[in-house]
């Protein structure tokens, strides 16, 4: 009798431990997500300053010098800024991007007279102050000096400072100026690399699995291959980076920093995962189905392609997407093949120099500018969304293919 009570007690205790473990894991995950989102969310907006632009009739808008015209209009707003240093302080509240925005605006402008308030990109220091990330102490805030703060206060008083959607973050590549830095280049680099990794490692991995599982005889050689593949899955990723460096860059002399090389390297890294997942998926296909197919006069290869592979596909795809998801978040091997450079152009193809999302995160978290902190978190949010989408795809594919009886 006491035995049963004891047993029930220990069962309850064990359930509690399990619940505790799950609860703790979820709590830690939530803390992590909260930290990332609360830091990174503000990066999706940024500070813009309004400037009264007046351009008379008769000027050829597209031939105006954007820089000097914008500065002239600024000086008209603040006639009290007379000294050289005052002017400089006023100008420096704007990002270099403001002139580019103004130039684009002039080029796209239809009429021949401009008169009104237009908003232009503020500098990262002002952005940090306006968002409250950097607190005001007296007349200064972070890198905003008192001599600048008087202009900032003017803008605030005139209600000409506001937050707008940050079109740079998702629309441009890296930049030295945090307010103009974006991750589109890194997203392209990651997409190219992942696509190449998938295209190379998926067929190779599945064919290897088929060969090892169905076509070769079990002998010392196949045992050796099997052991090696299992070991490869546990090799640190930076070693794959070295391999990529040695083979693709030094031997084949492919372009450095290209997402082609990154993709091939990540493909190599993903290969063992795909082989192992595919083999276990192929192994779990009921042999009775294969026997039935052979019994009807299908050849071995026909049986594999008509029955074994379709039945194993959900498992194979799940393994592949897990491998690819790991590759998307991988930084170390990309460092070795030079995808860690500062690249301001959005790559047009897999042969162009580019970075990848995790490498961009790695680069930004290392930058001294305060404004890169929130942008790093924003980039992490984007990376997490990518991974989330990939996992959703995996679940969807598995469900869809499994439904087919």
């Amino acid at each position: 009798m006491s035995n049963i009570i004891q047993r029930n007690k220990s069962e309850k205790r064990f359930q509690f431990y399990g619940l505790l473990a799950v609860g703790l894991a979820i709590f830690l995950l939530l803390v992590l997500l909260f930290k990332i989102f609360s830091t990174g969310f503000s990066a999706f907006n940024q500070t813009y300053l309004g400037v009264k632009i007046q351009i008379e009739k008769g000027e050829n808008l597209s031939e105006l010098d954007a820089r000097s015209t914008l500065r002239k209009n600024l000086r008209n707003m603040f006639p009290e800024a007379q000294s050289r240093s005052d002017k400089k302080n006023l100008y420096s509240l704007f990002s270099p991007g403001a002139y580019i925005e103004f130039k684009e605006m002039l080029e796209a402008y239809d009429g021949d007279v401009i008169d009104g308030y237009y908003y232009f990109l503020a500098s990262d220091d002002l952005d940090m102050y306006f968002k409250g990330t950097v607190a005001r102490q007296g007349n200064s805030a972070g890198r905003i000096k008192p001599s600048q703060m008087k202009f900032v206060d003017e803008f605030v008083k005139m209600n000409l400072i506001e937050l707008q959607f940050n079109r740079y973050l998702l629309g441009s590549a890296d930049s030295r100026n945090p307010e103009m830095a974006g991750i589109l280049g890194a997203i392209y680099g990651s997409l190219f690399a992942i696509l190449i990794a998938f295209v190379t490692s998926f067929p190779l991995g599945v064919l290897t699995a088929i060969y090892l599982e169905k076509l070769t005889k079990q002998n010392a050689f196949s045992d050796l291959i099997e052991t090696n593949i299992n070991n490869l899955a546990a090799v640190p990723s930076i070693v794959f980076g070295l391999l990529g460096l040695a083979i693709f860059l030094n031997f084949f002399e492919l372009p450095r920093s290209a997402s082609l090389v990154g993709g091939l390297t990540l493909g190599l890294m993903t290969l063992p995962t795909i082989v192992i997942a595919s083999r276990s998926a192929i192994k779990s296909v009921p042999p009775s189905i294969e026997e039935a197919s052979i019994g009807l006069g299908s050849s071995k290869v026909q049986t594999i392609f008509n029955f074994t592979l379709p039945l194993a596909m959900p498992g194979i795809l799940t393994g592949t997407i897990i491998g690819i998801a790991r590759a998307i978040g991988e930084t170390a091997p990309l460092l070795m093949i030079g995808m860690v450079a500062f690249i301001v152009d959005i790559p047009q193809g897999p042969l162009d120099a580019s970075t990848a999302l995790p490498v961009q995160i790695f680069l930004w978290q290392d930058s001294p500018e305060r404004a890169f902190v929130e942008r790093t978190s924003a980039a992490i949010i984007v990376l997490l969304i990518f991974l989330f989408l990939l996992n959703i795809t995996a679940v969807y594919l598995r469900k869809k293919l499994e439904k087919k009886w």
Partner: protein
Amino acid sequence: MSESLKIAVKNLDVFYGKKQALFDVNLNIFANEVTSLIGPSGCGKSTLIKCFNRMNDLVEICKYNGQVLIDGENINDASTDPVSLRTRVGMVFQKPNPFPKSVYENIAYGPKLHGMYKNKDDLDEIVVSSLQKAGLFNEVKDRLFEPGTGLSGGQQQRLCIARALAVNPEIILMDEPCSALDPIATAKIEELIEELKEKYTIVIVTHSMQQAARVSNRTAYMHMGELVETGLTKNIFSNPEHAKTQDYITGRIG
């Protein structure tokens, strides 16, 4: 009964690795008859039946000596293509194993594979007639495009028989076809076997003595990899020559 020899097994030894599974088996199987193989578990019945369509080729460690002649042609010759052999010798397995496809696709798979039809109507015709031959058509005619795995166990097994019939075999091998079925489904399969022997030569492995007695013309009794005795079913069951056969049929061993 025509008494024409369909399969002749001559001095067949089969090895799985170092273990010998069949010892010097000699057996004649006649056309348009049902021959049943009986014997205790592990006596080599399934091994023998799998020699008739070379399913043992799938087992890497399996080796054999001796001859299996079908219509006088040794199927163990290197010149025999096991794939085309298997269209002549169909097989029905112990557990119903329909493909994870529709009823229609299950039957159509074999003809499609071997290009045995001219057009879509032709294929439909093959599917319908195969299902009719297997006595399944009336039960599934409204569910032709539903999954074959959704049928009942007995229906699935008849679907497997229909699938084997669709490629027009000469011989049908059945490896304990009723062992996973209930008595009613078993009775249906036995009726079917009775009808099928008009056109096909049938070899059936069974654990049920009654089944062997009911459906087969000839019976072969195997024990420990040896063929102990073979003859007309009525003789084997009423008047076995060997003591071992006697023991097995009366339930003393096995």
